[in-house]
């Protein structure tokens, strides 16, 4: 697919004073307290933080899977639910969440079916996506026949099938080993640069966040919120050598310092 022809107008993401609480044994626990975050159209933001800081909850609110108790989330000025129904969102989870009885091709087509769009007219696009994630020859395999990395790539292809203007990823490579993860990071950058959807990536990996994102939002817990946002100045496309560069490690250390300071308090 030629990158110029398919360039879609992307949406920005605005999160305003979002609060979300959960009841634990009749006690109210703040998963998120008064969180605000803005992401420009076409930007790549990484959310990083300790377990329980509410980063997944924040992502689920943006994806329209949960509602905030207070505050608003807007994508291109519309509510997440409105955006969901137009197929503007692509969401990838830590687990590929593939349907085991469907082939790779059928799994990628699922969002189209849910949206009530034609699958037969999208066969060309599905072929392109399979090529994009490097799964040629496995079109008719079922998830049980694929390795963990291959399944995750099917899930990535599935998030792209609606040509989304917003890409939301919740630790999509969290279950992969370090080596595979790195090659997936490089692949994700390539895919992202072709289409430039507004992207939010939730991750535990500082290296992953620095390598992929334009800026890293560091979250804290009790109550969940954003402690600091750090800009990542590196040029794109970023090459694998960057992982070994001193300035890369300096930025990693800076982020780590904020993370551990938040945990000590």
């Amino acid at each position: 697919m030629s990158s110029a022809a398919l360039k879609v107008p992307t949406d920005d993401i605005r999160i305003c004073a979002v609060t979300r609480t959960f009841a634990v044994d009749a006690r109210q626990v703040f998963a998120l307290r008064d969180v605000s975050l803005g992401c420009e159209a076409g930007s790549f933001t990484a959310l990083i933080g300790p377990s329980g800081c509410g980063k997944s909850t924040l992502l689920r609110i943006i994806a329209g899977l949960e509602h905030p108790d207070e505050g608003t989330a807007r994508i291109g000025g519309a509510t997440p639910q409105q955006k969901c129904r137009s197929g503007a969102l692509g969401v990838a989870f830590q687990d590929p969440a593939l349907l085991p009885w469907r082939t790779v091709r059928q799994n990628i087509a699922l969002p189209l079916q849910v949206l009530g769009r034609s699958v037969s007219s999208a066969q060309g696009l599905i072929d392109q996506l399979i090529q994009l994630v490097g799964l040629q020859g496995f079109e008719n395999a079922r998830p049980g026949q694929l390795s963990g990395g291959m399944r995750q790539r099917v899930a990535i292809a599935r998030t792209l099938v609606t040509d989304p203007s917003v890409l939301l990823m919740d630790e999509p490579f969290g279950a992969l080993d370090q080596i595979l993860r790195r090659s997936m990071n490089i692949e994700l950058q390539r895919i992202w640069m072709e289409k430039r959807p507004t992207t939010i990536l939730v991750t535990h990996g500082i290296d992953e966040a620095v390598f992929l994102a334009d800026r890293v939002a560091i979250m804290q817990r009790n109550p969940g919120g954003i402690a600091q946002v750090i800009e990542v100045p590196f040029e794109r496309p970023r090459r694998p050598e960057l992982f070994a560069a001193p300035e890369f490690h300096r930025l990693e250390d800076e982020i780590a310092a904020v993370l551990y300071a938040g945990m000590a308090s």
Partner: protein
Amino acid sequence: MQALSVLLALAAWEALGDWHLVGQGALPSPSAIVAQWWQDRDIYPAHIWATLQPALIGFVAGNVIAAAAALAFMLIPALERLMRGFNIAIFGIPPIALSPVLVITLPGQWPQIVLAAVSVYFPTMVMTLLGLQDIDPRPIDVIRSYGGGRIAVLHWLRLRSCLPGLLGGLRVAAPAAILGAILAEFGSGARWGLGSFLLGSLGRGDPARIWGIGLTATAMSAAAYGLCALLGRRAAASVLAVTITPARIEAQAVARGRARTLRVLLGVGAVAMPFLIWWGVLKAFAVSPVIARTPWGVWQYLVSAPDAADARAGIIQALGQSLPLAGAGLLIALAVALVLATTGTLWRGLNAALLPAAVFLQTMPLVALAPIIVLLFGRGIATTLVVTVAVTFFPAFITIAQGLAQVPAASLDLVSVYGASRWQKLLLVSVPMCLPYLCAAARLVAPAALLGVMIAEWLATGYGLGGVLNTARGELDYGMIWAVAFIAVAVSVTFYQLVKLIEERLLARFRMAGG
């Protein structure tokens, strides 16, 4: 090696049979059974068909209703709560108690069809509902993030993922349908059908023929089970989730406490519902009031009619005879099952060998084999106990063995690290961990225990609820037939709820999730 042991067992059986070593010829030799079967080959097809046809119709009808009910319960949870009493009553009905009621109210093949349908309803409904509800939560998020609602999740996810559950239910239901059809013949006095054939032969005391009929019924059940198992295996292979499902916290978060008044209303409705349906069915089909008894009619018969005291006394005496035997049979079956399942885990391979055999034997219409047990053990209390243990043991064993198999390997490794012996592992880890399964086994096989007791009483001893029912049937004492059916269901449901209460207490005390 296995073939050799089978041959040896057959040879021993042949010897025991030929020399009339057991119960003065009650155990015929295999060759005698086959010879008798060959002699009867002309009449078998008609008997088999007379049982198979209504079983098949009932199987299809019962399963369609069960699947539709499961779907409705999934879509409207309040409906499930409202119908819970009815569902448990259907589960708890000893088919033998329902059989005479059906025979006096319905014409022709209908009693067989209805009893077969009633027998298949519960297993299919429960397993389909479980399949519809208990789905992988992660793909739900995928569908919802494209704006898909409940209907989209149902369409793309639930309908397909409930298939293994549905087919698993059919597997259990298939032998149950055949058993239901046979038990309806016990009360009907019909000319054809394996049940009628069995009863007639019991009267004539022809061991070789009784064994032949019992084994034929067993083969039919096993074939039905095998057919459904084959279908199920195909479907199950493609639905198993590829990765481990994360803890389902969301499901609990969604199930928030409902308004108290609504809960109470639904609870009252759940108790009233079985009676309403009972009354409604009689009204809808305009069953003659001479024969039919509404809930009010049974109340009159047992409480307010002039000779109610006599009826009550008869039933109380019968309960006094049946319940201790049912309880004893249940306890023996559970104890033997627990001991065997735990020894099975001590000696590796034993459970692996026993479990498939138990799963197979569970499908046998053991109740229909009751006449054989009567032949072997006579017409006393021993027969009642043996029949009861025989019908309850296998399901109990399977449930407990499954519980023991679910004990996490890490927990066992943990105590092994400190040098625990096999016995210590069993006592410290395995048995406490399978406590929920032990409770579930008690709850699930209790109705079978009552069924076993009543069958033995009906066929052999003439005591207890089964005896009273058989006498009432002979004397066309309609009031008593309805009263016994009602009491049998009530006892079954009460026991079920009692065990459930104990189970909940126990599990809450040990902070174990509901099994």
